[in-house]
């Protein structure tokens, strides 16, 4: 459905944010994972017609996004990573305003759209308050609501769960899952769980390149019986990093859990673990770092 072909983008200061990205994104939820500064937002903005790539082509169905951004915008829902609001405008008025801009002309359609969305993102009670006074989470929910106006065919949400409390996050993910069955939804995040919970397909972006692409289940399958774990003291960590291919570390009751990647049993007290998507992600990042 959405085809990116050899897309690169170089910023004016010389940063190569996207480096020959080729992706094919089908209907349904698509997760884009990557660390900070991986180029996720650049990719999202490029697809959302807000930025022209230095080279490459992007097509959505029969629309050439670079040549005809206007056509894509008619069926696009976009939630940027960071956004602000106008002063002195309430949530209801702003959603209504956005509905007109998205092409919902009739008053009854707009009323239905705005009221439905306000309830779905749980902003009904504060609909008449000025957006400028919203907390970060409330503002994020407003952003989600506006991205869903007009039943878009392509929904791009850049780090949508940032700043949401767990309850709101669940509510939002449910909403997305419901919508995401028939349309293309691209969800960028650095939270692995968002992707593993929702997305039948995903890609890992780091250093401007696609490091990995596939279905989370298959990817997890591929790391099966290659991830080993051990509980060690913090002071030992450096020596372990030298000896093994450490893909992630985390703390657990004051000690450090290391995960290493190895095709065979590394011995030394390591035990095999059932790898999750997180391990896939971290091992990919570890590989890309090594390659760099």
């Amino acid at each position, binding site marked *: 459905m959405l085809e990116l072909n050899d897309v690169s983008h170089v910023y004016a200061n010389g940063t190569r944010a996207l480096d020959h990205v080729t992706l094919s994104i089908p209907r349904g939820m698509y997760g884009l994972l990557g660390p900070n500064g991986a180029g996720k937002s650049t990719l999202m903005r490029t697809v959302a017609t807000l930025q022209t790539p230095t080279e490459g082509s992007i097509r959505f169905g029969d629309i050439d996004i670079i040549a005809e951004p206007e056509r894509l915008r008619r069926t696009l829902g976009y939630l940027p990573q960071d956004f602000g609001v106008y002063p002195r405008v309430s949530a209801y008025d702003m959603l209504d305003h956005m509905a007109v801009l*998205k092409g919902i002309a009739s008053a009854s359609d707009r009323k239905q759209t705005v009221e439905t969305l306000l309830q779905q993102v749980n902003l009904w009670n504060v609909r008449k308050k000025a957006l400028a006074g919203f907390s970060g989470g409330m503002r994020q929910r407003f952003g989600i609501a506006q991205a869903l106006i007009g039943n878009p065919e392509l929904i791009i949400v850049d780090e949508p769960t940032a700043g949401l409390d767990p309850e709101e996050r669940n509510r939002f993910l449910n909403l997305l899952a419901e919508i995401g069955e028939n349309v293309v939804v691209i969800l960028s995040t650095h939270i692995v769980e968002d992707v593993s919970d929702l997305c039948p397909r995903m890609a890992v972006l780091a250093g401007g390149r696609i490091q990995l692409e596939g279905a989370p289940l298959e990817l997890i399958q591929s790391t099966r019986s290659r991830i080993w774990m051990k509980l060690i003291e913090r002071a030992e960590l450096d020596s372990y990093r030298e000896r093994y291919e450490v893909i992630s570390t985390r703390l657990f009751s004051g000690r450090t859990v290391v995960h290493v990647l190895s095709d065979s049993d590394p011995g030394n007290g390591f035990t095999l673990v059932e790898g999750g998507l997180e391990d896939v992600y971290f091992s990919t990042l570890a590989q890309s770092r090594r390659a760099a």
Partner: protein
Amino acid sequence: MFLQVAKFEFAYQRSSPVFWVTGIIFFLLTFAGMTIDQIQVGSGGNVHANSPFAISQQHLIWTLFFMFASTAFVANVVVRDDETRFGPILRSTRITKFDYLMGRFSGALAAIVIVYAAVPLAIFLGSTMPWLDKETLGPNRIGDYLYAFFLLALPTIFTMSAIFFALATATRSMMWTYIGIVAFFIFNTVASSILGRRPELETAIAYGEPFGLGAYSLVTKYWTSAERNSANPDFAGVLLWNRLLWIGIGIAFLALGQKLYRFAEPGMSARRERKQKRQEAKALADAPPSAPAGALPRPRSRLPVLAQLAIRTKFEMRQIFRSPAYVVLLLLATLLVFSNLWSGNEIYGTPSLPRTVAILPILTGSFGLISIIIAIYYAGEVVWRERDRKIHEIIDATPMPSWVYVVPKTLGVVLVLLSTVAIGALVAISLQLMRGFTDISIMQYLLWFVLPIGVNMTFVAVLAVLVQVLSPNKYAGWGIMVLYIVIDVVMETIGFEHHLYDYGSAPLAPLSDINGSGGFMAVGWWLRLYWAGVALIMLVLGHLLWRRGTEQRLKPKLRRLPKRLAGLPGAIALGGFVTATGAGAYIYHNTNVLNEYQTTNEREQFQAAYEKKYLKYEKLPQPSVTDVQLKVDLFPQETRAEIAGRYRLQNLTQTPISEVHIRNLDETLKIKSVALGGARQASYDEEFKYRVFKLERPMMPGETRGLDFRAQRWQRGFRNSGYDTRLVRNGTFLAHQQLAPVIGMDRSILLQDRAKRRKYGLPAELRTPKLEDLSATNKNYIGSWTTADITVSTGADQTPIAPGKKVSDETGTAAGLLASYPTHQFSISSRSSRRAMPNATASMRGGPCRLLSSDARAKRRPDAERADRRARLLSGEFRTLSIRPGPDHRVPGLFDLRPGFRQHDPLFRDLRVRGRFPGSGEDRLCDLCHRP
């Protein structure tokens, strides 16, 4: 700590673009003032361009404008921490309030002072430029620069920085700071224009005026040029105290700012909290509707662009008109207009009758710079609003076409400007009513003010918006616009005067109660049509190049431009192009083909060349005109006159005359033929319209000859600048120079300004003849006594007037009048008898009417004030006369008052005078001109 903070701040300010841009702008402004003849600050006459006086004046005057720039530095000092959201990090460190505020202020002030050094640098470098006239320069002395910079400019810079720093600190808002500065500027202007008219307050003003201009001009008031070229005033007395006073005020503001500043964010006021609680309760009380089933509505396949345009327009208007800045701006505009009208509509404390035609020019004048500043400011605000609010990614991803951005935003700026214009008109009308003037025509306000000014302002708005669309950020856009205005002014002063390349320029018509706008609006409206075409193209460009999304570069958009131009945008741009070309061609035909386009420089060159070529004939004995037979056919609707006449020339000198020099001093007058009895035309200089006739037999003293001539005056089309207000549809007045040839050379049209004369290689001054030089007594200002027989024919609805007594009058298609009377100079006038005279006109200051009549020279002086002064000198009897209509009273003995006096000043354009005349205790009415 304090020092570190100050140092950091200094380094930060120095690396900002504002630092360099401001420095460069002030350098260029000062440099232009030094090196371009037409712009002079503090110098001129015999005062050198780099004299201590001129250096001081420039330092003082530029601080007035520098105030706006320095505020950008100091206001930013505190506000930027809130804007970048870095504030909380800083304020939670160990830094004290004093170190934080004063350290930063000191650092910023240091940067500001360095920027201002651009001014002395530009004066110094400017004075060394090789093309300057050496006579206008003196030696450069370092002490003069130090005196002006440290004693005059620095205190002002400190005080202004401190005041606006305090305001920014207390309000934590750039917007309120700029409103404060505009308010300060306007109050200062208003105060100095109102109080400055009262000489008894001179010393008080000198103490209280914040920029030191009053004090400096007071202490140097009676200085000669030699003193101004060589010395600085003692830094004592009023000058010292003025500087100290304002430094003290600056320190007080700093202390106040520090006191009002809170590290912590202010909480919500109790009243607002209650209000919000109520609203929340209300929102909750609404029962949430049941969740609608099914998918959300989809947009139609056709974009509802008109609905989008409507909602965006409404939205922009709300954002603009509901902002507190706008309300404050309107209040300030009201104040400014009111004070301008109040003081502009009176002469030396005597209020004039506020006729609309007299008030409109003052009103228009009030809107010059202020409206441009408003346009520039709002264009930056509206174009960058989405980005400043960081909502641009959301809005830009909607299918709304870019022109739905451009049009409402431009319209927003236009409406802001229009609302200031409308407020101006309302203020003017209320002033008229306050002064008891009720004959107010809304149509006059609409057609002569709101409409043309509104359209002119639209052009400024469109340009300002396009510049913001193209510029990389808001501040650069503002800077470009300021630069544009400076360049615009400079271009005009150095000789690029044609309206066709001065964007958005469309002149207003001279107004009069007798002649209305007299067809003079045409040139303005043609130009407006022309600029509308250009503006349309600019709007299309704004649409195509609109910054959509996060793309900052212009290049990709330019690359796509040709492709996107296809279709409707291209057609609209083409429409604009065709309109502009068509109107432009028509304007060019009028200004450059039908009429001659002459710049001020070319005019000066002409005058200089005239002098070089012909001044040598000044003392050549010439015959005098002792009788005139004149037949003038006026065609007021065509602005045409056909003239045939005969002079009786008599040699009133003691010597025989062998050649007669005949000149045409009027640009519009065409002399078709001249024939002098017993003479042949020896030469005719086309360029200077100068004829020399050689007499076959010299004219002996006392001998007379006849000179026949035919001439035509025909104002066709319109000129680029200047209107022929002589021959008009109603209220024509033609003096003899505009009707007929002039005999002999004199100095009347030569260059007078010393610097200009030197520039063209002429002696600095043409002096009056020495007392012993008796040859000068052969001539006088006015000329000899003449008898005149004048026949005037004009439109059937017109009343012709000429000096003398009416001999016959024919009614029918043309009214004729034959007059015969001894006079100094002859002139004719024609005005409609059908149109009612205005109900009331202006008041004038003049002496008893006989004075005016004896001062024929007033004709050549367009400046009524000077004429006034002259009248005062002549009589000692000087009273205020107010011109009002009244019953048909006449004062005997006043019949030879000339209408010529009226011609030059709208104040005099009326029929009757009411005044208290010497020897009579009551007000009486009289005609300004003879009505038999």
